[in-house]
């Protein structure tokens, strides 16, 4: 037999055919509780809906209104139309922050996914103290970012910190992990990957559990290499979870304020400033709520576009 066994298994899985069964998948049966009229359901949902509107929608609308004014934290200011958006979009600081946000997000999403996937695959194998290892791997995610940032600061900030000492011992000289603009960018990106990979690892581990072992066995019988198994079976079969985790991590990265603010404050000389940090300092340090909120809205817009694009990608994937 050729690789067709594995291929058939994959095709079945993609088309919704159970690997061990045959025939079309059963359509979910529509059930309706007696007396559950739309009015009743609406009445049950109304309090929650009201709370959601009150807590989420009102502040967003109010913030939108503020983005059209030139106010401060304590003054509503005058209506200026879209001037704040125009000012923000013509400000080089905004575009510098936007560029680094893209880099930070790309590295954060794919770096943590790559590490998380690799560790999830490793955790599928059997080895001693696996559970302890798994627990330790979760620590960067579990520990509050304030603590992690302080720990990383201790690791890299001064020439007497452990990593600069190590770098000097390796003949690399006085490495300024946070003071050199390029190294600071790399450091915050690595820090982001470090605190995020456990989340990806959990997502990928859960997805890997859902892959039927028969598919792997079939691939093994067909003589598929480990690489082929990974690229032609594992990755396609966990693609839906992968896209979901990418959407979530993209949102986490774009909105990530503490990682950068605590480690570098956006410096040196704005080198590591992302849009969310720029938005914060504009509102709460420059007291310019209009431009600051405008930045936050532009960020939200970009996030929605990215999320919708990735979500559409998920819908194209037929398997789970």
């Amino acid at each position, binding site marked *: 037999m050729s690789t067709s066994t594995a291929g058939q298994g994959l095709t079945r899985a993609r088309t919704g055919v159970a690997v061990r069964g045959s025939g079309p998948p059963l359509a979910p049966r529509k059930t309706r509780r007696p007396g559950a009229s739309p009015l009743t359901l609406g009445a049950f949902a109304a309090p929650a809906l009201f709370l959601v509107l009150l807590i989420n929608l009102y502040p967003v609308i109010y913030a939108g209104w503020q983005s059209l004014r030139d106010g401060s934290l304590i003054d509503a200011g005058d209506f200026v139309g879209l001037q704040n958006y125009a000012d923000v979009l013509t400000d080089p600081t905004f575009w510098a922050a936007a560029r680094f946000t893209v880099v930070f997000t790309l590295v954060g999403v794919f770096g943590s996914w790559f590490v998380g996937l690799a560790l999830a695959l490793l955790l599928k194998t059997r080895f001693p103290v696996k559970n302890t290892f798994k627990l330790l791997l979760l620590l960067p995610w579990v520990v509050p970012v304030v603590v992690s940032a302080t720990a990383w600061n201790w690791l890299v900030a*001064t020439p007497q910190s452990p990593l600069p000492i190590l770098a000097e011992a390796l003949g690399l000289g006085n490495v300024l992990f946070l003071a050199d603009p390029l190294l600071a960018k790399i450091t915050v990106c690595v820090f982001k990957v470090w605190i995020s990979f456990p989340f990806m690892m959990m997502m990928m581990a859960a997805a890997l559990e859902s892959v039927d072992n028969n598919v792997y066995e079939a691939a093994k019988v067909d003589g598929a290499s480990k690489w082929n198994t990974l690229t032609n079976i594992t990755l396609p079969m966990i693609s839906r979870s992968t896209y979901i985790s990418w959407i979530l991590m993209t949102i986490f990265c774009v909105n990530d304020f503490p990682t950068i603010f605590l480690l570098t404050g956006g*410096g040196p*000389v704005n080198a590591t400033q992302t849009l969310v940090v720029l938005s914060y300092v504009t509102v709460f340090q420059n007291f310019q*709520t209009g431009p600051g909120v405008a930045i936050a809205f532009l960020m939200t817009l970009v996030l929605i576009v990215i999320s919708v694009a990735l979500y559409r990608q998920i819908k194209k994937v037929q398997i789970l």
Partner: protein
Amino acid sequence: MVSKSGLTRRSFLALSAAAVAGPAVLAGCGGGGGGGAGGGGSTEPIKFWNMPWGQTAFNPLDQKITEAYKPEAGLPAVTYQVIQWANFNQTFASAVASKTNPAVSSGGGTQVFQYEAQGGIAYVDELYAAWKANGLYDDFLPGLIDTLKVEKGYAAIPYNLDMRVIWVNKVLLDQAGGKVPTDWQSYLNAAEALKKNSVYGYGTGAGAGAYTGQHAIVCWMINNGGGLFDEQKQPNCVTPENIEAVNFVLEMVSKGYVDPASSTYTSANVQTQWKAKKFGLGYDTGGLADNIGGDVAKDIAVISPLTSPSGKKGSLYFPNNIMMYKNNPSIKGSEAFLTYYYQNMAPLWTQNTGIGLPPLKSIAKTKEFQANKDKVRIVEEWVPVARTWAAPGGQANFLNVTTVDATPAMNTFTQSILSGKTDAKSALTKLQADVKATMKS
């Protein structure tokens, strides 16, 4: 943005800011107007909000002093509340907007100017008139009261002083064969001597939440007769005095007297470097020795103010203050409480709670305060030559100093200088443009 008595608050601000992210920026920006009309004779308790100005002992003692207040008949009692530095701007802004603000509060050093501009502050001119009669007015350190004078009156009362002074590690300087500097050239000589022992002669930090690095550069400017604002309260950064001062700092950077990682040092990193005996000389808060503690604290001391090439002395300081709000159940009651408070607040200093320097001569003269030679030197030698953000144009702060107090513009300016990748004129020109862009009309 604000000022305070030591590094703790600014550092804490940076950490606490971690609680705020993008969605919070979207949802958390409260607007609204100022308070309502001032009250007259209500017996509704007046609220006193105070900040954690010192160490853990500060607020309990402060509360004890406050709650010991016994109002005269017809005047309201006082309630006490600690307001944490975390997001304090939002706390006050939302309280004022919802008219649930305190009657009396401290807060950020420049906070009062924002509320005053909105018409929310009750001026303390009448209170000062009463204090002239009972001697309290004359008890303030010279020049201090006028730092809070605005066009319409006195906006607030000086409460504690956050000073920027030069510290030296005497042991390290002796080991290096250096002499305590008295002017800029001797400062360079001392830094050169320290460098031979791998000690930095300009210890500073301008990283996340560390604003002392910004202040230090402005200290050099003020020392040289410069500063950031002119008599019309307009930014005037590109002056010969400022250029000379920034060139002086750049010279120290190029000569290796500045730790190359300084531009991203947090306050904790700066203190670590002092503790590690890597910093031997530099500007810091008046509370540096208290903050670093241990054996090194005994080795460091405040030196006398330097004489600049222009022949002048000077430094930057922040008169933190207490303000009264117009939306107030009883202005008279608030004034009565403030009179009591200022007459009885001395234990906050004599019991060494960690608050900044006292505003009153009588407290500075107590034997407990006199026991700390560094603090005495600061009061006697640094306070008289210290200037506010308003320098060189004036001594009274005003609304637009908020554009330079812990702002991104100042941060970028400082980091660019400490990284040595700029020249004085370019850096000051950019600062001038950034400050102008964020100024309120």
